[in-house]
């Protein structure tokens, strides 16, 4: 039974990654899962310098999901390389995908340049879709011209393959996927969070200090599946699918829709072993269905 998948020449031992920002750099969850068994560890977004993030509350619960407005707090790329990448040295079987954020093209490029010669970095995921950064972030991800341009710029600097992470807060995800492909992206990943809001009716005020937050969790899954499906029939670069995956069924669904690999985010918060539980479920499914190669189910529902 083969579970290996390949994206832009990088071979993953299985299609299971965790979603950026939900797993730190793996340190905290290494108490629950053997990181070496994952297809890849996808790190929390990292910027050129440390970012403070948003004020609290940063978290709100919604039905079958959550809102977050972390605001991309991160210690900056220097500390990241010295501490987080070093920590990940010990997990050679899992690939490392570094999620990159920035307020401007220059800031993205600074991070990409700094990471260029880091051997532990197998792939870069460029987050052009975080809804919680006013200065840049989502604006990039909502304008196809900006998507194409930032992709081209980052690609020109990157030594590792680049995955452009798309925002679902758009009229037509296909246009954004095409723009990323046109800009030279090696792959795309989707979906980032959907912008939502929660108001406390007793206090008559926003639950989140930032007013709005990014919605994730099972509630967004059907939208994510639809968008992955739409992109799969539009671009020829591989897709990393995510959004509300919490069971092996959700993961298989995403692959049937066209994803070559999948990321697990919010599910980690209520099931710290979600990633490996899902991997096991997928393997049982393959066995039961007589699927020899996981690649045989990618995008077969049309």
């Amino acid at each position: 039974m083969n579970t290996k998948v390949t994206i832009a020449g990088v071979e993953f031992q299985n299609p299971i990654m965790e979603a950026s920002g939900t797993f730190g750099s793996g340190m905290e969850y290494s108490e629950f899962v053997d990181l070496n068994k994952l297809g890849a560890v996808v790190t929390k977004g990292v910027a050129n310098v440390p970012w403070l993030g948003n004020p609290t509350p940063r978290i709100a619960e919604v039905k079958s999901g959550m809102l977050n407005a972390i605001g991309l707090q991160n210690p900056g790329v220097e500390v990241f390389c010295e501490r987080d990448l070093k920590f990940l040295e010990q997990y050679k079987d899992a690939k490392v995908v570094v999620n990159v954020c920035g307020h401007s093209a220059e800031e993205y490029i600074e991070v990409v340049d700094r990471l260029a010669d880091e051997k532990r970095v197998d792939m870069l995921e460029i987050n052009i879709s975080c809804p919680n950064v006013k200065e840049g972030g989502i604006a990039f991800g909502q304008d196809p011209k900006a998507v194409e341009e930032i992709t081209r710029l980052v690609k020109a600097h990157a030594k590792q393959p680049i995955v452009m992470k798309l925002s679902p807060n758009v009229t037509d995800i296909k246009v954004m996927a095409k723009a990323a492909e046109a800009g030279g992206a090696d792959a795309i990943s989707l979906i980032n969070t959907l912008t939502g809001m929660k108001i406390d009716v007793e206090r008559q005020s926003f639950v989140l200090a930032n007013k709005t937050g990014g919605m994730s969790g099972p509630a967004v899954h059907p939208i994510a599946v639809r968008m992955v499906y739409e992109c799969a029939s539009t671009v020829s670069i591989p897709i990393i699918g995510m959004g509300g995956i919490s069971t092996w069924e959700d993961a298989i669904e995403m692959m049937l829709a066209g994803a070559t690999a999948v990321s697990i985010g919010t599910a980690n918060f209520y099931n710290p072993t979600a990633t490996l539980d899902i991997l096991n479920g997928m393997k049982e499914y393959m066995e039961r269905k007589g699927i020899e190669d996981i690649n045989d189910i990618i995008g077969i529902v049309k």
Partner: protein
Amino acid sequence: MKVKERATVVAQKKLAEGVFSLELETNATKYAVPGQFINIFSNDKSKLLPRPISICEINELNNTLRVVFRVVGEGTTEFSELQAGDTVEILGPLGNGFPLEGEKAIVVGGGIGVPPMLELAKQLKGSVTAVMGYRNDDLFLADEFIDAAADVIIATDDGSVGVHGTVVDAMKENELTADVIYACGPKPMLRGVAQYALEKGIKCYVSMEERMACGVGACLGCVCQAKEVDDHSHVKNKRVCKDGPVFLSTEVEL
């Protein structure tokens, strides 16, 4: 070591209006120290995020943890309806817990901040003065401090029992001193206690609260403001779930 498991309810008891005591049999007991908390998950599958609840008592003999909580929303309502024999998912113990220090300690609890002080008072080696603030004469848990503390001082908002006022008023009135103060309660109370400690030159630990998602330090959802750049975050933020919930009162913005 953190344990994620289905814990079994051993006992549920109403302590006061809207305040419940829940005893859970769980292997998390083995690793628990006072000041830590556990994440309790709802059985309602549309509610994904855990409810962090402080550990009130650790009973290694029975392998049980006791938590005491106030009903404030749907999650805590559900927990209040659990009965012996029911099961509930938990993750814990989480956070750092109180360091056990000093010859003479004051433990200060306000309202639903009282429960974590019980196990702490029991485990502290030196002499313990317990100061507890309540809204009114519904003094849940206060009686249980009698064995654990040398002195028990009560303050109530409505003056029905003990000092009429806050725990800080009670501390002032009794001119309390010690080597160390441990406090848990609403932020204004923590601010007052920290101020008192500062004035008296007493070391002071406070237990903080913030909305959480992961509970294990990964998501950066639960940060509080730090006075200095933090070693982990490299910004002036500390994670309540992992670096806390217990902080030196001088480390964090209150």
